[in-house]
């Protein structure tokens, strides 16, 4: 056997969707995580309920680089329909496990091949009733893999017990199938490949969660009071997580509720309801994805113009139109930046990790209420639906900011003299009152039509211009409240990188690889729009700044060019999207393409 390869490889599992493989795959991921080895898992699934090919990729990396790997070292083929393609995908020198009931040729001699007697083993499992055999059969490959690469069976048990919420019967039934797979492999297969796992201590204190759950929890810690949503992949699990956790986290002795979650009839109504609630003083949100967001455009413009706080989560999928509903991208950025007709500027938060999904979950409400604006949070399918290692969620480090609200006693003091859209504090943010405030001067008439400082209907050209100028001024004030970019300034850097969102692991890996090859690169991760002063300062400090993103048109690059036209000549775009989560390879290749000859030659060895 060649030199062992320890804790540094990736696995791809090809199954039939709807066959129950996701439990098996998550079990592998979680067991490796509990062995202390940095690991990530990506579900590459079809927009279908049952019967289509689906893949799951697991990457283990002792150094913590967890972006999707372009080529798997180990492939497990359970699906005859994708078998041939799966075999072709194995990296040279890799490993191919396959269910031995698939009678198709092995046409490669550069990979180690292990057949798995899945059907036979599962039939011998006496505690698995016939109707569950196909589902539990997936556990057999977990067991075979565990035996062959060294996944600790106790950790597999932990993962199953967690999945089945400690219910003994399903946990044991599945675990027995895992054990049977492992025992069979021990008796029938001889290890002749180099890939092994060895326990580490690199995941101590970390948790594993998906971004949609994190976002929902963040919203709950942000004091969410109202959410309306319409089912859409990949955002549905965000609202469903609200329903899962709200009853527990907002439990009261009297059994009454301080919140409401409504499944609306469509996305128009979902945002309409959230805007109604936000207007009336509730911390309100909706969650959707591209097609839903398109429907929300008109309402988003109303919230901007009438100055209503509301939070909109966009868990991005790919494409114009229906696109690829189960694949990821960063394709909604320019749309959201100017969403809705007329002059319009958006506040956008860009989380890049599970912990940021949580953090922005509560911060978004503070920002929306402080600014009286819609706040968009752009996550994506990769962040939202995949399980990621993460530092634990941190309790909000500051009290809620409910913004500028005048209540009865304030109106009393003002003797009722106030104007809904008066810029009394010179920051562009007016004061507001809420329905139910019992003062004869509390009420005002909210409208999406032209209005003056006292919320009266107006078509006066000066009034319109004044209002739009104030909104622009308010957008400037936003800069004080949004999360600042994360800057890593490197002395003597050849160029700077700008990126955002879920590409972070891929970009950081590419940057580390290039640094190891002698190419120094600074980096700035944008976390919000509007851009803050750090962004132009960073661009100014570098001769070349490469903007990396997961879309076709280089949308962030476009926005930066528009915001800083004088700096635009320095900007280069690396934009690619095919629905799969970013990998270090395309980031790295993209960076090199934009660098001067000597710089890229110095890393030819890569």
């Amino acid at each position, binding site marked *: 056997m060649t030199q062992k390869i320890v804790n540094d490889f990736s696995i791809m599992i090809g199954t039939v969707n709807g066959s129950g493989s996701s439990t098996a795959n998550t079990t592998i991921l979680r067991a490796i995580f*509990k062995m202390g080895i940095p690991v990530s898992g990506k579900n590459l699934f079809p927009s279908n309920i049952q019967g289509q090919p689906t893949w799951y990729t697991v990457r283990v990396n002792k150094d913590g680089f967890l972006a999707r790997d372009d080529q798997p070292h180990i492939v497990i083929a359970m699906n005859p329909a994708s078998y041939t393609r799966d075999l072709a995908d194995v990296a040279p020198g890799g490993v191919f496990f396959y269910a031995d009931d698939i009678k198709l040729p092995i046409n490669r001699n550069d990979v180690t091949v292990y057949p798995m007697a899945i059907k036979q083993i599962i039939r011998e499992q006496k505690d698995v009733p016939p109707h569950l055999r196909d589902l539990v059969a997936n556990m057999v490959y977990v067991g075979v893999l565990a035996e062959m690469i060294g996944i600790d069976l106790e950790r597999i048990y932990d993962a199953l017990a967690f999945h089945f919420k400690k219910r003994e019967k399903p946990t044991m039934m599945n675990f027995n199938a895992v054990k049977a797979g492992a025992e069979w492999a021990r008796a029938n297969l001889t290890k002749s490949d180099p890939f092994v796992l060895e326990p580490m201590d690199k995941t101590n204190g970390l948790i594993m969660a998906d971004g949609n759950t994190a976002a929902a929890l963040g919203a709950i810690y942000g004091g969410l009071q109202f959410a*309306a949503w319409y089912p859409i992949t990949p955002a549905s699990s965000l609202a469903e997580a609200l329903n899962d956790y709200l009853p527990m986290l907002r439990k009261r002795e009297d*059994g009454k509720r301080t919140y409401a979650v409504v499944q609306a*009839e469509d996305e128009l*109504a979902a945002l309409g309801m959230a805007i109604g609630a936000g207007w009336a003083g509730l911390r309100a949100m909706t969650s959707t994805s591209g097609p839903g967001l398109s429907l929300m455009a008109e309402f988003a413009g109303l919230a901007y113009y009438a100055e209503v706080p509301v939070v909109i989560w966009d868990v991005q999928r790919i494409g114009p139109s229906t696109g690829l509903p189960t694949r990821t991208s960063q394709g909604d950025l320019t749309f959201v930046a100017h969403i809705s007709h007329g002059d319009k500027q958006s506040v956008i938060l860009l989380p890049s990790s599970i912990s940021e999904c949580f953090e922005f979950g509560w911060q978004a409400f503070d920002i929306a209420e402080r600014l009286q604006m819609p706040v968009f949070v752009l996550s994506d399918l990769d962040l939202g639906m995949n399980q990621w290692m993460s530092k634990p969620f*941190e309790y909000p480090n500051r009290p809620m900011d409910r913004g500028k609200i005048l209540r009865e006693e304030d109106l009393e003091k003002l003797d009722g003299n106030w104007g809904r859209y008066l810029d009394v504090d010179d920051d562009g943010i007016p004061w507001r009152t*809420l329905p139910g405030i019992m003062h004869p001067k509390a009420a005002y008439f909210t409208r999406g039509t032209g209005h003056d400082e006292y919320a009266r209907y107006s078509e006066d050209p000066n009034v319109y211009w004044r209002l739009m100028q104030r909104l622009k001024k308010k957008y400037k004030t936003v800069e004080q409240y949004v999360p600042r970019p994360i800057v890593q300034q490197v002395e003597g850097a050849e160029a700077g990188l700008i990126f955002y969102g879920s590409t972070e692991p891929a970009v950081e890996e590419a940057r580390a690889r290039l640094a190891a090859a002698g190419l120094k690169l600074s980096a700035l991760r944008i976390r919000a729009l509007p851009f803050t002063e750090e962004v132009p300062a960073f661009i100014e400090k570098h001769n070349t700044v490469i903007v990396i993103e997961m879309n076709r048109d280089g949308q962030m690059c476009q926005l930066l060019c528009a915001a800083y036209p004088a700096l635009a000549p320095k900007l280069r775009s690396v934009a690619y999207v095919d629905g799969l989560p970013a990998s270090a390879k395309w980031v790295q290749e993209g960076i090199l393409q934009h660098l001067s000859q000597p710089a890229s030659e110095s890393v030819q060895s890569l």
Partner: protein
Amino acid sequence: MTQTLPLAGAPQQVNAIGLTRKDYLGNPTTLCQGCGHNSIANQIITACYEMSIPPEKIVKFSGIGCSSKSPNYFLNRSFGFNGLHGRMPSVATGALFADITLHAIGVSGDGDTASIGMGQFKHVVRRNVDMLYIVENNGVYGLTKGQFSATAEVGLELKKQGVNQYMPVDICMEAIAANATFVARSFAGDPKQVKELLKAAIAHRGIAVFDIISPCVTFNNQENAYHSYTWGKDHEAPLHELLFVPARDEIMIEDIEPGATLEVELHDGSVIVLKKLERDYNPTHRWEALKMLEEAQRNNWLVTGLIYVESNRPSFTDTFHLVDTPLNRLTEKDLRPAPETIEMVNRMMF
């Protein structure tokens, strides 16, 4: 509109909470003179004044169109939200969670409800959101200058538009089909009935759909048009005479001749007294209501009155079992889980 002016030295006329009718006024209307919508706005003012509802306890909603402008012309002391075309229901649905003690009055039109807003209309009805949903129905788009709406009758001829070929949407039928708990129809030319039905609709807990034929004097008031004053005056067929009796005001029931009446009690203890006219109509039967509407449609009758009522179904917000304090008065203490819970949440992750 008649308003009693206070005589010099005489105490000003006030309602049970000490407010004058003036406290319920809105801005001067900018709609056409003679527009049915203005008459409805006046009846809303009077109804709320007579019911002694604090104006701050009312919240107004509308969509887009002439009808949707009208919340500006009543109840200046009430909050209002004039939102998007056809989307009044969703905004109201969300807003009403903030304070369930508020009364919601929504004003929409036939375009706003029966065309662009049909989806939201059906769903706000189906959810039984606690609001009065008025459709100021004139069969025509006024603000864009006289196109057919979806409630226009077959054969209606309009300048520039030609002859309408399509079957009209019947707002009341749609409401009942969507399981509305209160459905009424009236005619802006019959202010007394409008007022009594408004009161009953406001007192009703749940959705109250009120289709009011409200002629457009500028674009659709031809003598033979279904939505015109002349046609309405000549053809209105009231189902009953009706009187709204507030919960605290039991004595008034005695004013009505016994025997020929049907009384419907609402959620808050108030009563609608229905005095039978020619027909024997019971508005608590959904099936009868649909049958009656079908008959009216076939015969081209403008049947007015209380078409359907069901007063014991919980409203949308009722089904959420919210705390007694209005949600928009809760503080961080009520809303943010305690610091110690974060560890538990982290433990719940893998």
